[in-house]
């Protein structure tokens, strides 16, 4: 079993549309994991059945029992997050600021503070319209610990793949370079970088690739909307050569992606267009390179 992670650095490059197309092409042989838990959109295209759901608990928030509190203020003194202001002469926890570190209950002389475990979202086990087993999640509003939820989604996807002898786990990652992305990359066999020929696309590609290098994972790149700016597209291609990143393919700027999305379909299911052939070829290439294993020099 091999794990393929699709990330982009920059948002809005077409990462999810492309990943969903790969998932559809892979069908029941590919387990899909939507690890963009912050703004999970892949279910809108793959239409999984949400067969099983489970709450996800992670992290804590402090709670002060006002009957036990003697207003000594020790909790507020030790809190580094300004999370315990005095409101109407009472020490109150500002939940948005509380990091859940658990320092305050340890200094409270009357044991008036309790750490409450937080329900930060749900995760789901599904089957998609194309027959993929799919693990996905929804992070609660303003919740922390998205990295931990990503880890959970990946763990479940890998477990299913192992138990049912699937060849691939296909992971849709989140934008950025922070904790959810780091969590998505951990354990991956191959990374697909989806970028676009804009100054931002290239800038963000360079940053996210630095992160990929820290994990020493082999990478390939898809340049989406490649005709938008031929000059920046050339710069990206030069960058790929210099960094020995496999150049998987270029996709044209094409509103078909949006049209298919509006119908709740992946591009490969939507009409007969050149994109379908390109995506099919790219997916074959991704599988082939992933199976070649580690060839990093």
């Amino acid at each position, binding site marked *: 079993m091999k794990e393929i992670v699709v990330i982009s650095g920059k948002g809005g490059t077409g990462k999810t549309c492309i990943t969903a197309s790969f998932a559809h092409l892979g069908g029941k042989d590919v387990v899909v994991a939507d690890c963009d838990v912050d703004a999970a*959109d892949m279910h809108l295209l793959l239409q999984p059945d949400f067969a099983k759901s489970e709450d996800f608990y992670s992290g804590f928030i402090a709670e002060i029992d006002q009957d036990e509190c003697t207003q000594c203020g020790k909790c507020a003194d030790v809190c580094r997050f300004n999370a315990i202001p005095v409101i109407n002469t009472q020490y109150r926890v500002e939940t948005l600021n509380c990091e859940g570190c658990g320092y305050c209950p340890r200094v409270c002389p009357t044991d008036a503070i309790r750490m409450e475990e937080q329900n930060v979202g749900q995760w789901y086990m599904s089957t998609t319209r194309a027959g993929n087993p799919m693990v996905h999640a929804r992070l609660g509003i303003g919740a*922390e610990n998205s990295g931990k939820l990503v880890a959970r989604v990946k763990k479940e996807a890998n477990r299913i793949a192992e138990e049912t002898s699937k060849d691939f786990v296909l992971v849709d990652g989140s*934008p950025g*370079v922070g904790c959810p992305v780091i969590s998505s990359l951990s354990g991956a066999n191959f990374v697909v970088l989806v970028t676009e020929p804009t*100054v*931002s696309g290239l800038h963000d590609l360079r940053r996210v690739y630095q992160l990929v290098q820290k994990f020493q994972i082999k990478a390939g790149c898809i340049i989406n909307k490649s005709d*938008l*700016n031929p000059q920046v597209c050339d710069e990206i291609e030069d960058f790929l050569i210099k960094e020995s990143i496999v150049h998987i393919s270029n996709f044209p700027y094409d509103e078909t992606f949006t049209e298919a999305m509006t119908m709740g379909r992946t591009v490969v299911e939507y009409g007969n267009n050149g994109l379908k052939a390109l995506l099919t070829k790219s997916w074959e290439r991704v599988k082939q390179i992933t199976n070649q294993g580690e060839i990093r020099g």
Partner: protein
Amino acid sequence: MADVVRKGRPNRKMKIAIASGKGGTGKTTLATNMTAYLAEEDEVVLVDLDVEEPNSGLFIKGELVHKEDKYKMIPEWEQDRCTPCGICQEVCNFHAIIQLSDQIMLFSELCHSCYACSELCPTSALPMIPQKMGEMKHYRNGNLSFVESRLDIGQEQAVPLIAQTKEYIDTHFSEKMIKFFDAPPGTSCPVIEVTKDVDFVILVTEPTPFGLHDLKLAVDTMRELNRNYGVVVNRHGIGNNDVLEYCQNENISVLAKIPNDRSIAELYSRGELVYQKIPAVKEHLIKIRDQILELKNGEAK
């Protein structure tokens, strides 16, 4: 309109965050064009708080005024003083400290700088020391002050860097200046840190199923935070009408509908500002500004 400015704070200009839920909807385009346009007449501050992938600096140039490395505090183990009693490992809720027989291992990327281990250690064997997490730069171009922070690659937590950058803004710029914060995509902790105390949030979306789905999450987040907000629909004309219908049903102000135009995307791709070349975009900026100011004036009454 239900979700508009409520609180009154006269003699104080606004802090406005530009956020989105979905990435790539045009946050940075709006932030850079809006501030560059406003700076033609007024002092304005643009702060790029998308510290994982800061892009505003690709569009806004200026003279570097100030630069500083940003640090977070982490414990350092002083073996000579350690007894090793195990208290540090027990108190760390983030599993950033592990004790193996008489050795202490620290995982600084997991540390939230709460100081519990350091201050509860009976022999003061874990003093807090600074660790670099990123850098902040402050540029000036005429009336426009531009501050950006970027997280070092490999650092997991964006929130401490965002918080420190906001502190810099509060201590270095007058309350009377209008400030725009370019937020990261999503709805999790970095977005909360950017938006939790601003006066207004512009949510930029696109009229597609992804745009709508993530807009709903962003709206739920703003309601949870009790923020005032409005929506800008970018690339109007693609997809369908569901975003506009949603806004209407939910009584959410739509501040502008910026048409889908490949030439906007091409200018953006080159790192150019759009409003100087495409008059329609300038009209939209004026409209957005006027609506926000109107909401602000309404609040002062």
